[in-house]
């Protein structure tokens, strides 16, 4: 795992992102600087439209900032071309979506292995078995997405994000589409991946309980980081959240 000088795997400096031009232009990010340390879970919270998804897309190299720099695993990604970015994603990034985005014609196992298959790689010995055991899918591997519950589908998606042992796992409202008990299982799973594999996670969420499992919580409002908490209780997070939203 490559880290930059200060131990951060993701470094953003003065990132702005403007959508559109002229009078209708929207400044989704107005100068965000953030370091994501290795092995840490970071939650990003904020009101709707505050720029959470935008920030995450830029950190993950899916989108380019209007100004500012992003470094991922020691590589400045803002100037990279598509092929280099794709390669970077393969090696360093896992992504969990709100909609599970599984391929319907592949079974669970094939879906999980897809990132490796695309890269033309094979999982290390025992790693795949351990992973599916950890996410609790051992007896569901030959099922297709249509034959799995929402929670199981999201677990497949998480396993797919973890299978390549990415430097950072990004998750945008991974529980947004699930009921509360299923959400809880998924959050447990993510937390375990931090504890057990020292997985770095950046997760956007609206759920204070979800944020409570993170080592660090960033609060965005109107395209800026307005507050930051260390590991906190759901209660504390909720009250900061209310403050931020009211402002």
């Amino acid at each position, binding site marked *: 795992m490559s880290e930059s000088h200060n131990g951060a795997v993701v470094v953003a400096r003065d990132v702005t992102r403007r959508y559109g031009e002229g009078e209708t232009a929207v400044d989704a990010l107005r100068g965000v600087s953030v370091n994501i340390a290795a092995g840490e879970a970071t939650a990003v919270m904020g009101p709707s439209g505050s720029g959470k998804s935008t920030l995450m897309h830029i950190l993950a190299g899916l989108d380019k900032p209007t100004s500012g720099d992003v470094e991922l695993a020691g590589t400045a990604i803002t100037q990279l071309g598509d092929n280099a970015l794709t390669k970077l994603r393969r090696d360093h990034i896992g992504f969990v979506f709100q909609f599970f985005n599984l391929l319907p014609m592949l079974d669970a196992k094939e879906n999980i292995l*897809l990132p490796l298959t695309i890269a033309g790689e094979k999982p290390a010995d025992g790693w795949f078995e351990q992973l599916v055991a950890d996410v609790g899918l051992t007896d569901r591997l030959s099922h297709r997405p249509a034959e799995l519950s929402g929670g199981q589908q999201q677990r497949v998606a998480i396993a797919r994000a973890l299978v390549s042992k990415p430097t950072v796992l990004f998750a945008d409202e991974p529980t947004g589409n699930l009921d509360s008990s299923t959400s809880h299982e998924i959050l447990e799973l993510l937390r375990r991946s931090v504890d057990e594999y020292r997985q770095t996670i950046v997760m956007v969420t609206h759920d204070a309980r979800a944020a409570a499992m993170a080592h660090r919580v960033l609060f965005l409002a109107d395209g800026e980081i307005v507050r930051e908490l260390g590991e906190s209780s759901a209660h504390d997070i909720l009250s900061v959240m209310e403050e931020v939203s009211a402002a």
Partner: protein
Amino acid sequence: MIKVALRGLAGRKLRAALTGIAIVLGVAMISGTYILTDTVESAFTNLFTDSYAGTDAVVTGKGLDISIDGEKPPDPPVDASLLDVVRGVEGVALASGSVADEDSTKLLTSDGEPVNSEGWPTLGFGIDTAPAFAQFNPLKLYEGRWPTAADEVVIDAGSVDEQGWEIGDTVQISTLQPKRAFTLVGVAQYGEVASLGGISFTVFTIPTAQELLGREGQYDAISVAAREGFTEDELVAAIEPVLPKDAKAVSATAEAQEQTDAVGEFTKFFRYFLLAFAGVALFVGAFVIFNTFSITVAQRTREFATLRTIGASRRQVLGSVILESLVIGLAAALVGLGLGVLLAEGIQALFKSLGADFPTGDRVFATRTVVVSLAVGVGITLVAGLFPAIRATRVPPIAAVREGATLPQSRFHRFTPWIAGIVVVVALLALARAMFTDELGTGDRLLSIAGGVLLLFLGVAMLSSHLVKPIARVVGLPAHTAGGVAGRLASGNAVRNPGRTAATAAALMIGIALVSFIATLTNGMKASNREAIEEQVIADYVLTSQDGYTPFVAAAGDALAASSVPDLVTSVRSDAGLVDGDSAEIGGIEPGTIAAAYDFDWRDGDNGVLATLGTTNAVVSSNYAEDHDIGVGSVLTLRSTADRTATVTVVGTFEPPPFYPLLESVNVSSELFDSLYDRPRNRWTWANLAGEPTDESRAQMETAIAGYPDTQLETREEWIDREDADFNEFITFLYVMLTLAVFVSIFGMINTLVLSVYERTREIGMLRTIGMTRRQVRRMIRQESIITALIGAALGLPLGIFLAALVNRALSEFDVRFSIPWAQLIVLTIVAIIIGILAAIMPARRAAKLNPLEAIAYE
């Protein structure tokens, strides 16, 4: 609601355009066919109307009522002395005799080759060009003057331009006489005809034409103009009494009409022939439209459901989809109509490249062309769009709030395999009826075949959604095992929506089936042709006319016979006549030599009977004998076009290969033949050498026939190869015409892929975020396209071979070989792969261009 439909259409321009193209090409073919055939027909009609503009009646010889394959031999000439008789008739103001021959006058290029060797008429005229008779002359002089001396000619503008001749140049011309040099003194053209196409004409003085074209003391026609106050019919009535019984008078109007009708028959056939290809393209287009509408309706489930929740009725939903197909159909038909003008030029150029250059004049754009093109274009779009439209009405309002709602299955879904089965059975019955029922008219038979084939395609297409999975497993194997992850995903994608893949592949299947049908059937025909020649001919060389089938002047065969190089030369004469009152081709063979070049397969008799032919006997083919219930000992009455008769006794029957009999059904000795016909012509002249053929002996033989440039000398092998090549040219033409349908199916494939990419936007975005490169995305789409194309091939190839086998059975009386052209079928499979690659270019590029971010944010 109408606004909603039109807005929706405007928002899906690319899809609408791709859908429309499916109809544009078919409609263009219809309109192009009409424009071309109307233009050609009008050019011919003008030619005939011009020809008789200043004429009221025509006197010609009275031909026998002979018609072979619908073609009538030209009327025989009349005695030149008849001109004065006609001039003396009350009511005749002016009369003039002329000579006109259709195919013996060959203009030669500076290399000594005939200018026209493709079988188009090469007219030779002798016209009285005195100013007094100008009204009978259909030709307009562009340049120079009319011929006055025996060595002067006027030639048509087309040939003069093509050859770059100038007035005063010397031009070599061969006729029934060996070639001779003439001086070009003028250039002429039919008045209103812009181009005569492949037709050429040469005008000689009358005495020269009579000498060169075998009309000494004769005219082919006497043109008559009526005195003031006489109608055409009164003129004819006045002339008739003075004519001998072997001549007749016809009004100019009737004569022009007869010729126009004959051309009408030809253009009608030609029109239906081309329309058949338009039909195929439109049929394929219907599949594409059906498929595209089905996919868009499925993708718009949410939208329809939302419309329903806000109060739209089923009827309104139906109306909006139908309106969409109406707009697309109309727009496409209009574009197709216009494109037809270009296509008409294209088809004409194609024919020209095959040596068939039609006469043309001003382009004819008939109202009928517009009406039929628009009606067919709109009609097919509406019909093909109807089923998807009905399905759209079945979307329940609740689908608006459900995530991932899909279109409900059609009520009839369960029955489709059964319906498809019934369609296939009906198709097979129709085909069987067409092929194995004897007492069926040609029209009925063709209709039955066309209907059967269409139904068969439809049935197989309906069944194919069940065949897609197993076939894809086979044809997708290379992609699956060797294509990496892209290949594996592609083969999965191909079977995700079997109905969609099936309809897409079925459109391609039709083109591939027709091509493989033609390839298989003609492969057998070529084999039969070769065998038939090899079985019959044991000669080293064959002499034919340049086009290979028009009989050539007998003197050319005699010239070869006079040469000392060949050991043996024998000629086969041929001409139309009546045998026991029925039209038949009569052949003339040389009893002493024929058996050395032609291997008779005797049924009754042996080579010995040839010596007994004399002027009183004949040998007939066993086929003819059976059909007419005659045999050895039967007596036949022959009547030639020159109206001379002979009675002959059958002394032998032989059985030529039915696919290509080289001798006529009824054969007499050349001696008798030459006494029956004035200008005997050879169908073949065969020559044997004592030793092996050498370049030197060949050159000597070529020299011997140098005076007859319209003939060609070939070894037996060259002859067979040339017939193969001529046939291949025709087959290629059929293929070219079928590419139109294949093009339509390519657009169908592009359309389906574009729609699938659009549908899978989010999925592709996800693949990109987890590390798929653009290249891999492109490859994935390409492989899916190739798999679809190969499914089309997997369905089409066997279907084509099956149809070929069926037709082969139906042609069993001609003993056509059945031989599967493996090499061609492999090429066809490769072509299918290339089609898959081509169809994927644009959709793959679109898919690869998807920004992963946009793709996952997409809703």
